[in-house]
């Protein structure tokens, strides 16, 4: 073995593939980055599950994160809401497990029975990131099961507004069944229509009658079952005195059936049975494509999925988890480090340092002392505190904030096909009537009926009805590949119409994860450990960043620790004394000229060792992105934060952009409203609860998130922070998609013109209709698919 492999730089964790900084965690010749990963390995190894590491290298997820509490799962009331099924012996539960990412995950989660004898079986769904587990509840409680999953690195994500349960509601079963029936009838009626198309000898006429009746029989389920939705929708649309695209479709279907029935009953011809079935089949497929959704991402999340499932209530001497809906005014609750305050409350005990960045946009923790009122939504960043609830959860500030944002009037938007269909139907009926009138005038009433019906049949906007769904669905999967998740196909047209962009600051254009930290100076490994040990005691965000950055695993005991708010901290470690904080505090004389971010100085035994500097954590490529947007869009920034970063932002944003600070959530929403009143199509980009109202108010709301499985407010699209820089290209691509729809409309219109020229003459044969309709459909599907991918390549989104 070469020696270089053993140097610290070359070590990667056998489990998760992260950098291993120490050789301490070692097992069977494999190195691990932390105890968590090593434990997972040991658990798997002892249960003979090493196959896990065979299917992928480093299949695990990093175990350095903190597991959340799960004691509330012992409460039957809470547990019952989570499980799918329960009888005397077994329980079935479905968990949402964000960590599922590779085939090893599937393998391990389906071999859980090896880990515990009480697990009967488990089945995972990779796309939905769910695992369904059947277990015997006698020997294994729900909490133990969750603990077991957490121990092997697959912690289920449990929230009140459960993704698993929500996903079950939406089903397309009835649509799929309708497509199946239409497809079945289409195939059979086409088979029965072929003899007619190829021509039959005179002695075969008795078959023609039989085929006609069979065809009519196949039309009935299509008309009465598969196409039912179109008639209903057309009727509703007429009642509202509007003409949507379903009106000409329903008209076409009805005319096709009437003409088929009359021809078969009178024995005058074969009818259009296969065209009718084919038309319904294709437009239903289009509808199915359009209804594509994401199972694993929820766009309709509200405060319930942000809150924890339960909090610890203190009654007398006992602590017991209760569901947050059961919390009452006057209850005493215990909030530990990193937990969220569920309701407005008064601080009774302890020191509160609350991170409200998600609610207000303010990035620095808010300090509270005993007797202070604390609003819901803050995350405690210091030690455990005790609170007394002053308002029920449903009436707290945060919940009100959310509910207020809900009364936004339905955003009106005319999609291209809506606009077209308003003119389409009148023109269609006009042509049909003119053709009929012409032939009546000529004294040929048979031909008049033929021409009238043929116009309505041939001009049935099948291809038009398919062009939007297929283009937008292809665009949706392109976005999907680039980690940008749009709620529905219809939203892409809305996105293309946007001309104004409003950004939030904290979490949107800045990313806490992207904070670039440097140490200017020299620190030995020993000194690094000392600094980390001291900083660990502080709740200041910078101290936490430093601890994270130093990546020290062994901490040393610290004595005589004291912290001066806004200045720094000092402590003793063995014989050494440390001062960490501002330049004045540690006695540093040097002041760096290029002041861009915060600095933290370090002095050990009175000697200044150097300073940590934190660059503003703007997302990568922000300036380029804003410059790219500049020519076509008007740019705005509304921040809930104070304006301390105004000078930097003025440099980042192109001149002409509006920058607003200290904006309350309501003010953000009003600002969007003001822009809309100036007939702007506004897109809001935000991340937190404070943007929820603005996101809903905007014509198109994008939630920016570094982890799409985490909470994000209700929106029209979710953008993964890593794809932030691609945003201008996404907007261009949305416009391209709309352009493709326009083009395909042109193509389908030209087919219609060809068909109509035959139809008005009253000479359209069933064979002609049976060929033209599928041909135009296939052309449109082919064109939209190819064109969308060409544009994706052009925009480098493939």
């Amino acid at each position, binding site marked *: 073995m070469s020696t270089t492999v053993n140097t610290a730089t070359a070590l990667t964790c056998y489990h998760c593939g992260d950098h291993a900084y120490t050789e301490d965690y070692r097992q069977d010749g494999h190195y691990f980055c932390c105890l968590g990963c090593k434990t997972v390995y040991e658990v798997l190894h002892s249960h003979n599950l090493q196959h896990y590491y065979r299917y992928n290298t480093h299949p695990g997820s990093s175990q350095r994160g903190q597991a959340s509490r799960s004691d509330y799962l012992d409460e039957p009331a809470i547990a019952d809401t989570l499980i799918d099924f329960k009888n005397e012996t077994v329980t079935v539960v479905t968990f949402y497990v964000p960590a599922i990412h590779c085939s090893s995950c599937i393998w391990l989660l389906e071999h859980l029975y090896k880990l515990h004898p009480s697990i009967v079986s488990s*089945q995972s*769904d*990779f*796309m939905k990131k769910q695992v369904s587990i059947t277990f015997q509840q006698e020997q294994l409680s729900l909490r133990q099961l969750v603990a077991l999953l957490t121990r092997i690195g697959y912690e289920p994500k449990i929230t009140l507004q459960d993704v698993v349960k929500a996903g079950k509601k939406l089903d397309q079963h009835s649509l799929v069944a309708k497509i199946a029936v239409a497809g079945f009838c289409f195939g059979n009626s086409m088979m029965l229509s072929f003899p007619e198309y190829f021509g039959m000898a005179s002695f075969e006429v008795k078959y023609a009658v039989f085929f006609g009746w*069979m065809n009519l029989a196949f039309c009935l389920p299509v008309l009465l079952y598969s196409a039912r939705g179109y008639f209903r929708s057309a009727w509703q649309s007429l009642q509202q005195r509007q003409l949507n695209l379903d009106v000409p479709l329903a008209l076409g279907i009805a005319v096709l059936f009437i003409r088929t029935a009359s021809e078969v009953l009178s024995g005058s011809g074969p009818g259009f049975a296969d065209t009718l079935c084919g038309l319904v089949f294709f437009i239903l497929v289009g509808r199915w494509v359009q209804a594509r959704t994401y199972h694993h991402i929820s766009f309709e999340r509200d405060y319930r999925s942000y809150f924890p499932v339960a909090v610890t209530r203190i009654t007398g001497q006992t602590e017991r988890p209760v569901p947050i809906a059961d919390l009452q005014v006057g209850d005493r609750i215990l909030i530990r480090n990193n937990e969220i305050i569920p309701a407005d409350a008064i601080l009774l005990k302890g020191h509160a340092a609350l991170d409200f960045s998600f609610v207000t946009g303010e990035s620095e923790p808010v300090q509270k002392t005993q007797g202070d009122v604390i609003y819901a939504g803050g995350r405690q960043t210091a030690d455990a505190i005790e609170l007394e609830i002053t308002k029920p959860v449903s009436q707290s500030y945060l919940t009100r904030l959310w509910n207020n944002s809900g009364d936004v009037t339905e955003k009106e938007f005319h999609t291209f096909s809506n606009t077209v269909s308003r003119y389409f139907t009148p023109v269609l009926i006009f042509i049909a009537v003119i053709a009929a009138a012409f032939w009546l005038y000529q004294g040929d009433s048979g031909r008049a009926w033929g021409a009238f019906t043929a116009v309505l049949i041939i001009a049935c906007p099948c291809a038009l009805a398919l062009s939007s769904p297929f283009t937008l669905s292809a665009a949706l999967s392109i976005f999907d590949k680039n980690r940008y998740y749009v709620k529905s196909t219809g939203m892409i047209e809305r996105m293309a119409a946007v001309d104004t962009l409003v950004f939030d600051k904290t979490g949107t254009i800045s990313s806490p994860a992207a904070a670039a930290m440097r140490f200017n100076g020299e620190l030995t490994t020993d000194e690094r450990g000392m600094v980390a040990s001291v900083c660990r005691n502080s709740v200041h965000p910078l101290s936490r960043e430093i601890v994270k950055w130093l990546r020290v695993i062994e901490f040393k005991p610290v004595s005589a620790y004291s912290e001066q708010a806004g200045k720094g901290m000092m402590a003793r470690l063995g014989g050494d004394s440390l001062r960490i904080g501002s330049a004045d505090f540690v006695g540093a004389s040097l002041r760096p000229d290029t002041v861009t971010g915060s600095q933290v100085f370090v002095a050990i035994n009175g000697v200044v060792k150097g300073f940590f500097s934190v660059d503003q954590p703007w997302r990568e490529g922000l300036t380029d992105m804003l410059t790219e947007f500049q020519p076509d869009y008007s740019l705005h920034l509304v921040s809930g934060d104070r304006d301390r970063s105004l000078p930097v932002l003025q440099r980042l944003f192109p001149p002409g952009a509006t920058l607003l600070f200290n904006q309350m959530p309501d003010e953000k929403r009003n600002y969007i409203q003001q822009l809309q009143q100036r007939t702007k199509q506004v897109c809001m980009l935000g991340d937190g609860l404070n943007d929820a109202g603005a996101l809903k108010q905007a014509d198109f709301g994008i939630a920016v998130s570094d982890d799409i499985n985490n909470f994000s407010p209700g929106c029209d699209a979710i953008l993964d922070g890593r794809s932030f820089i691609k945003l201008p290209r996404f907007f261009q691509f949305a416009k391209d998609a709309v352009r493709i729809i326009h083009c395909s409309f042109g193509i389908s219109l030209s087919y219609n013109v060809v068909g109509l020229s035959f139809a008005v003459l009253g000479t359209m044969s069933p064979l002609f209709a049976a060929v033209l309709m599928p041909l135009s459909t296939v052309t449109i599907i082919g064109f939209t698919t190819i064109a969308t991918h060409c544009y994706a390549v052009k925009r480098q989104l493939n």
Partner: protein
Amino acid sequence: MSAIFFLIGCSVFIALIFLAAFFWANKTGQHEDTYTPSVRILFDDEVAQDTDCGPSNEHRQSAPAAREQTRS
């Protein structure tokens, strides 16, 4: 030539069976997860050499059987 009526009857009947099979598959959720089974089929069967596998094997029903049980 009247055989053609019989043959068409047969073909429609068989097609109806397939339609019914599709409905059954759709109803029992066989189309819900179209990805995971494709991965699952590639997993190797385990070598039965290890005897310390634990007591789990006795308890374990085959996965489809267990699912069937829980559904009913």
